[in-house]
């Protein structure tokens, strides 16, 4: 997006901005309405974040002109996304990680348990 576009181009852009605004307003109403529906938590999270992602995408693509930007900005954002994903994945990985947790396999007796049974 430069500062040397023709008035016609700018008028066309303005119409696009207003359409995006209308879409964002409708999607906000959708987000709030869906939250009142009787759904389980995981469904609600998926729908709310899906709609938020569409809204965020519209803002980034049209208002922040990411549809037609310089390659350098795309490179900066790609690097940011990589670190952003790592920021979420690393802590979540620590929760999903089962190392150090006590678990038993069905039908397998541990030596200690066997000795204890014999003692009785």
């Amino acid at each position, binding site marked *: *997006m430069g500062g040397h576009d023709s008035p016609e181009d700018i008028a066309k852009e*303005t119409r696009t901005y207003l359409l995006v605004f209308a879409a964002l307003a409708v999607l906000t109403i959708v987000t709030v309405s869906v939250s009142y529906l009787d759904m389980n938590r995981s469904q609600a999270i998926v729908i*709310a974040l899906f709609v938020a992602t569409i809204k965020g995408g519209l*803002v980034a693509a049209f208002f922040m002109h990411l549809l037609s930007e310089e390659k350098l900005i795309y490179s900066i954002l790609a690097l940011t996304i990589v670190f952003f994903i790592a920021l979420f994945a690393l802590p979540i990985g620590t929760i999903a990680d089962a190392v150090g947790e006590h678990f038993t396999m069905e039908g397998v007796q541990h030596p200690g348990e066997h000795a204890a049974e014999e003692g009785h």
Partner: protein
Amino acid sequence: MEIPYTVEPRPDTGLYNAKLGIWLFLASEVMLFGALFSTYVILRTGNPNWVQHPMNVPLATLNTMILISSSVTVILSWASLRLGNFARFKAYFTATLLLAGGFMVVKAIEYNQEFTAGLFPWSDNYMAIYFTLTGLHGLHVVGGIVVIGYLLGPGAKMYKTAPEQYTNRVETVGLYWHFVDLVWIFLFPSLYLL
């Protein structure tokens, strides 16, 4: 000595310097808010007894609409400057400032309701992350109000001497403002609706 590349793009980046600067700043902001969102996910998924207080959804919805509207007015103000219509630019930019102020007023009403209900940042994990995220976002709105206010007030003199540079400044603050809107778009469902 004149500061280079305030208007024309640098040949190697294809961008004027302030635009590259604001995008690098926004990248760091993504990490700042990302760290807090990640904290929220960890706190919430790690606590089987998570307490979710009912928040004021109508007020938060109103604030969402206010921020979305301000995103439109800020970009229309930039479009007006590119058309050379300074009067229309001022009208849209003033509307952006008023909407930003309106957002903070609504947020203050909400905070007041929460304090009255005995909900403070130290009440529980949910309130702690709620006040941290919305408070940090509110500080960003205040930052935007300061910059937009400056460009509308004393900073507007630049339009007479260097209109293209001034237009670029408005574009840059616009990018920041859209980011503030973008963060709220994710904060709203995460904190109020889920």
